[in-house]
């Protein structure tokens, strides 16, 4: 999941705190907006916008947090739509539905733990690059 590597320069204390906050923000939003997957995405997007003129280090980690939340948003939204269809639309519970919910629950759990790990590592001046997400963030966030 993660890859430790040098960022090219040593970020200062304030930068580490800002980058770490991008992940803390998505955790807080997750708890606040539990039934609504869009809350996390909005929180990460606002944080990204707020830091788009920050240093490359802060921008890069804010962008990675945003990409992670965007992926979760699509998966969780579909899960929510399916659940609401069962409750209000007369759709039946199937093995596929339960399997989907278990899959996204596992992904959310892994993401939750990884986000806590990332926030702590960044706060202590570490470098955490998520598999795929870091490669994608490199494309959308240039120095």
């Amino acid at each position: 999941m993660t890859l430790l590597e040098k960022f090219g320069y040593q970020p200062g204390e304030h930068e580490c705190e800002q980058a770490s906050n991008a992940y803390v923000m998505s955790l807080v939003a997750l708890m606040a907006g539990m039934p609504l997957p869009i809350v996390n995405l909005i929180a990460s997007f606002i944080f990204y916008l707020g830091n788009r003129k920050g240093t490359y280090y802060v921008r890069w980690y804010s962008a990675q947090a945003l990409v992670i939340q965007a992926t979760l948003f699509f998966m969780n939204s579909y899960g929510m739509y399916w659940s609401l269809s069962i409750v209000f639309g007369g759709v039946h519970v199937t093995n596929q539905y339960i399997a989907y919910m278990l899959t996204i629950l596992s992904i959310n759990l892994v993401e939750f733990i990884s986000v806590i790990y990332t926030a702590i590592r960044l706060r202590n001046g570490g470098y955490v690059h998520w598999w795929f997400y870091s490669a994608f963030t490199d494309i959308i966030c240039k120095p």
Partner: protein
Amino acid sequence: MKALFQFLVLVALFFSTWFLLSKIPFVEKLEVSKTSKNLEAQLGDIIYQSISKTEKEETDSLVLTKLNDIKFLLCSKNNIEDTAIKIHLIKSAEINAFALPGGHLVINTALVKDCDSPEELCGVMGHEIAHMQHNHVMKKLLKEVGLAMLTSVASGSGGGEALKQVVKTLSSSAYDRKLESDADKTSVQYMLKADINPQPFADFLFRLSESIDAKNIPQQLYWISDHPESAARAKVLTDYIATQKVVKRNIMDNEDWENMKATVGGM
């Protein structure tokens, strides 16, 4: 290129996890349908018990037999298990009928008294049976009351207030217009299949709308005030019936119908 490859690996991982998990027979193992049926049956029993504490049930065997005959006629011709529907005739001056979870169909004596023919009554019963068959009752409760409160009522931990709210939701508020129209049309289809003339049901709805237009709605006319836009619905039904082949079976002797009305009317 690297990002694309990693993306494809992640997508493949996601779908293969989902696919493999979906091979586990969760629905059978967790008895999902049995659990939801149990909740529905339990809820229905608790709600009806609560109603029967405050209302008196009519026990006249003639009236009950005739109501059950109508129910049997509708159910047997429409592949509905008639024993799953339990009719309760309540002595009440409110013109009302409503469906509860678990197949309980509550009819007030005032409704029977207000109907001009057994076909009208049959249409109303068919309408409520349609709500049950299309799972409208549970959908409405889930939408308006919520799963958490329903579970607490079914487990007995919800308290009197929660139960009161559930009873009120079912007995004195309408379903949304789409569900009402759906139940109307299904009721007409039930009647057509049972060779019962559905036109009196449409006439009944039209008569209700006239009472509303004349602002002549007695406070007790719950089925009317809770089923708005009766004129429009009556027109839709009349137009639909005009396109169908109608066989007019006599579902009850005139004498039996008059006796039935006299029995409920004397309350």
